[in-house]
């Protein structure tokens, strides 16, 4: 699961960098090493992420949703959950590490 996700992320990085002329050489180098032909995350990844996010502790899930899906700043998140910015950053990082662990356990979706 994670390897697949990283491969797609790398492809997306390459696609993005292709739009940036200053990074053209980097793009070519990365493109030579990439074998993935997909440019979007699969439904399986989306579903695995949805389930994994739902399983996060409330305080971590809240920070992830506010930051990544609502686009709030950490200061806004901290104010919303009555905590500190530093604590919210910590929860955010922990949540992503937890997701990494869970996704690595899940295997590749079909």
């Amino acid at each position: 699961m994670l390897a697949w996700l990283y491969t797609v992320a790398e492809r997306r990085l390459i696609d993005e960098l292709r739009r940036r002329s200053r990074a053209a050489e980097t793009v070519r180098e990365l493109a030579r090493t990439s074998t993935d032909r997909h440019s979007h995350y699969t439904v399986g990844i989306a579903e695995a992420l949805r389930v994994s996010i739902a399983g996060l502790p409330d305080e971590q899930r809240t920070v992830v949703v506010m930051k990544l899906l609502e686009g709030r700043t950490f200061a806004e998140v901290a104010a919303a959950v009555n905590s500190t910015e530093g604590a919210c950053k910590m929860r955010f990082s922990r949540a992503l590490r937890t997701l990494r662990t869970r996704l690595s356990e899940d295997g590749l979706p079909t």
Partner: protein
Amino acid sequence: MNRDRRKRFFDDPEVLKLLRDEPELLAIADAISQTQPHREARRPRVSVLAAALLGAVLVAVSAVAFWPSEHGGLIDRALAAVSAGPVLHARSERTLPNDVVVDLASGQETPTRIEIETWFDQQARELRSRVWRNGVRIADALQQEASAAGPDADRAVVLFARGYRSALESGHARVVSSGGGASAPRITVDVSPDMTEVVSIDRETHKPRTFAVPTAAGKETWQVLSVASRARQRTDFLPEARRPAFVRGSVRSQKEIAGAQVRSSGLAWPGPRFDGYALVRAFADRLVAEGGAAGRRAGRGLRLAYRSPRHSQPLTIQVSRRAEPAYGFAEGRLTVSFNPLPRLGKIAIVRVGAPPGERWVGQLEHAGSFVTIRSHSKASVIGAARAISGNA
């Protein structure tokens, strides 16, 4: 509130800065952003990884621009003190004043003590870290490419283990004070692009004695118990013992019940009233724990809510026959802050959040019941625990 919600998400430097040296987490953040429904207008699909790469370039440029000029004397001696071999072995500890064990009879508090032992092979880029909390080993992790802290070891310690010597070697260290009187010499070391640690150096051995990092709450200081560099030994990087799989839990359903049913449950509780608090609602929960050697298993527990005219916030209690992950017992065997469970007659209490909005979470075992107490008042948590254990 930030009104510019429609700006390009990855132009916001916060996620980039936080995850700059953790590409796997950046990839996961990117995937979440791209696959999960946004609550507001969806932002342009711009990769966080692209921003990360550009950010890394900027960091590299700024590192060159601010290349330190002071790289002699004390720093040379500090480097020489840890240059005997490729493996840097260190043991560091600190105590947590807001993560304590309280003896319910005497009221005596003992702060949690964390000790982390690290081995870092600079050539092989391998890191091993062992974590003890209150004398109990809770983690033993091996990372082939030590790019970031694992889930168990403190990031400041991991970055110190892998970054201290290389910062001294590469010139990413500066003398803050050469010491005088009773104070030890101090240097700052850039152990990662986003973390600088202040290290005090022993006058005689020139080895690090403490290292400190700024935090939201002030400063986090670690005592270096021992540090040595040496040749790699066979046992340093043996594959870690098979770790139990992550255990997670959740509440699957709840049903409100009467106070009389709480009494007949046989589970430990403080009664309908204690310390000015009165039971206002009670629920019977169906729980599930997943992962670990036992696999999926169902459980039951009670959730109680109390109110007091002296406190604006409620106090809640969760109680069950097992250390349920859904009730905050990490891995089904540790406290919410990953400490070993306290002995009978004691309660582990940790502060969550910072004043004035902090909460306190207390956990204890009593008469075959595992109890989690949450309140905005530490004294109320202790009062509830005493009512439960009969020490009121």
